């Protein structure tokens, strides 16, 4: 029986990492293993802390700008690949999750671009390649499987990249050849990137010594995918339950039908959802609570001036809408904890107050609200002032830097541990199973 020390660290109420180190022999060669219980949702304080580590303050605007571009880019891919919208939603979830644990460095990226650096390292930090990797994993997880090569072709066409060009990265075969060629320093190594280089002393031209962009991208994307799987803690339910895969869009339309909400308002809800899937709210609040929050915001705004082409139903009068609002029982009727719905409501209103002009919704509403004669943003501000005293998520456990630092789950993730095959990931609802295992081990 190996000697075991079980060490539970960084817990406030028993969650976070559980580190189990196992000693198989008296020799000091202990292999640390980690069991991580996935925490798919983070409070905004935790998100801020994590971003503080990965994105420098000066780079925050760049991060937001690039995230917006990535969203557009991914939409173009899903449009051309004919993927359903849920693939976009999952992609954005993965993409944003990635930058909680991995550095965003626009300066390095810009420098690479200026120097036309086409290496594994430069590809690995390129947000658009990271987004492609996210999309690749998302399409598999959403059961809309396409070959990586097809996705790459579409992505590169959108980015106007000629992916048959050679990179500065040598192929493994050429490295082996170089090594067997004496010291390996004879071959031309200036990184000319033309793919045809002479091997120096024997003068024989080696074709394909360098990867093409397409080949190197593929290598990078597959490597990123493995890292990404660890970032999402191998949770293929995207923080949902195991029986049914639930996405915001599906839940939203289901809730709208349940509440008998008219076409125009349902469309309005759906447009908000489309804006929201690119925001970090999906890392804080679960899909059902976001869906309900969107409905509550919509019913409060009563957006009768939304432009629709398909279905011109009779406008509901205000008192009917208010009645619907009153009947919403978030816990009993929709299994949505109120505090999460509140968190989402506030976030959505803030989002439109600050970013209305960049939103999708902006394209569907007249610039000036017909009823009030004011800019549309005012409606969101007015509504927010009504919701000022809503109780939102408690941040006690992440209120101080000390407390946050103690939480091992928020530390940079060490990919090398998983590389050795000694990491185990579980979802929170399987934790009980783990507890019994621990008990068994300790007896």
């Amino acid at each position: 029986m190996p000697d075991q020390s079980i060490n539970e660290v960084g817990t406030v109420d028993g969650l976070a990492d559980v580190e189990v180190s196992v000693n198989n022999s008296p020799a000091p060669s202990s292999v640390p293993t980690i069991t991580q219980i996935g925490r798919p949702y983070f409070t905004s304080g935790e998100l801020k802390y994590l971003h503080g580590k990965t994105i420098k303050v000066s780079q925050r605007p760049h991060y937001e700008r690039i995230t917006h571009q990535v969203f557009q880019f991914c939409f173009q891919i899903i449009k051309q690949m004919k993927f359903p919208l849920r693939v976009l939603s999952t992609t954005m979830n993965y993409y944003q999750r990635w930058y909680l644990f991995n550095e965003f460095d626009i300066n390095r990226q810009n420098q690479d671009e200026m120097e036309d650096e086409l290496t594994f390292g430069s590809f690995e930090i390129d947000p658009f390649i990271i987004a492609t990797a996210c999309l690749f994993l998302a399409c598999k997880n959403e059961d809309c499987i396409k070959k990586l090569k097809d996705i790459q072709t579409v992505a590169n066409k959108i980015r106007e990249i000629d992916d048959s060009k050679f990179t500065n990265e040598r192929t493994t075969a050429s490295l082996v050849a170089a090594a067997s060629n004496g010291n390996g320093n004879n071959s031309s190594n200036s990184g000319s990137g033309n793919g045809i280089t002479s091997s120096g002393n024997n003068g024989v031209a080696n074709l394909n010594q360098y990867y093409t962009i397409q080949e190197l991208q593929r290598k990078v994307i597959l490597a990123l995918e493995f890292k990404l799987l660890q970032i999402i803690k191998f949770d293929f339910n995207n923080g949902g339950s195991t029986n049914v895969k639930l996405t915001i869009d599906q839940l939203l339309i289901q809730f709208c039908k349940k509440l008998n909400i008219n076409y125009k308002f349902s469309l309005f809800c759906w447009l908000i959802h489309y804006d929201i899937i690119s925001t970090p709210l999906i890392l804080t609040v679960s899909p059902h609570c976001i869906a309900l929050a969107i409905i509550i915001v919509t019913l409060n705004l009563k957006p009768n001036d939304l432009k629709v082409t398909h279905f011109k139903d009779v406008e509901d009068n205000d008192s009917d809408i208010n009645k619907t609002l009153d009947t919403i029982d978030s816990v009993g009727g929709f299994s949505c904890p109120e505090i999460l719905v509140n968190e989402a409501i506030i976030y959505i209103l803030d989002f439109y107050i600050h970013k209305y002009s960049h939103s999708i919704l902006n394209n569907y509403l007249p610039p000036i609200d017909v009823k009030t004669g004011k800019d549309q943003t005012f409606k969101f501000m007015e509504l927010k002032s009504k919701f000022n005293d809503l109780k939102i998520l408690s941040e006690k456990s992440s209120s101080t830097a000390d407390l946050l630092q103690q939480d091992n789950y928020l530390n940079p993730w060490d990919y090398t541990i998983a590389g050795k095959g000694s990491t185990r990931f579980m979802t929170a609802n399987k934790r009980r199973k783990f507890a019994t295992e621990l008990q068994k081990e300790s007896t």
Partner: protein
Amino acid sequence: MDAFEAATQFSQILRNLTPSIQNLTKAAHFALRNYESEDYLFPTIIDVLEDRNIELNTKSNIFQFIEILVSESFYFSKQSKYNYPYITNLKSSLPNILYRVLPNSNNANIHNVYNSLTKISKYFKIDCINYINKFNSDLLTNEDISDIDRDIEFPDIDLDDIKSSTSDPLLAAWEFLIQKKHQSQYERLRLLKHKQSISGNVNEDDLFSIKEKSNKSTILLSKKQILSRMEDDRESHKRSKESLWVVNRPKDANWAGEDEFYNLYWNKYETLNAEEDKALLDSLNEMNKIVAASFKDSQFK
């Protein structure tokens, strides 16, 4: 390209058809580009199917090609230049085509034919739900069971009989397919009842030795053909799954628009009944546990 040249080239295309969507679509586009030579190209399809040297896998591919050709022809005919090329000819010959793709007692292609015929019926806007139900049901009668017990072969299916009893060739094709399915169920049971089964391990070569190398018949498949068929079927299965999720959006769209909401959400989702609603709420409650465990503070009960 003159009609004769087009027909020769088309024949080559059909003989070398693979079931990848690109290849099938390419072949369909060739046919549509040369729609003026339909009088030559359509008989080529029938000729290739009637060729004794054409193997079963190719016939299955050709039927999948026919499905694509129908769909593309309808699509092309949105332009005034096209007037539903091949549609009339294909429809009237469907029973005969099926007869060639599902020859004698070999029903290896039955499932692919069923998938394609279901889609073809949709393009023709013909309600075939009864046939679909029939196809997926147990078709054996008591009489069949007693015949199987007596080890009697399934009687030959008379195509002319079917054609004379049904006026619409598409429905005749369905009738024929149902009879083939009937035959396949019958023969399967007969095989199980009257042939010895082997227990224990069988090595790979024996497993695939359905067809002797010297046997030139195209009714049975060789090992290579079986393996390539498995690969092809995997491909076409993937393709059939694609139709479940494919979303067509306008080319110049910069975001998902109202049409998508109208077609894929508003018209697709119905209000849940009480039982479904309860099941949904149960899984949401399950999700709540994961959410609660995700936060370190106790946020809700």
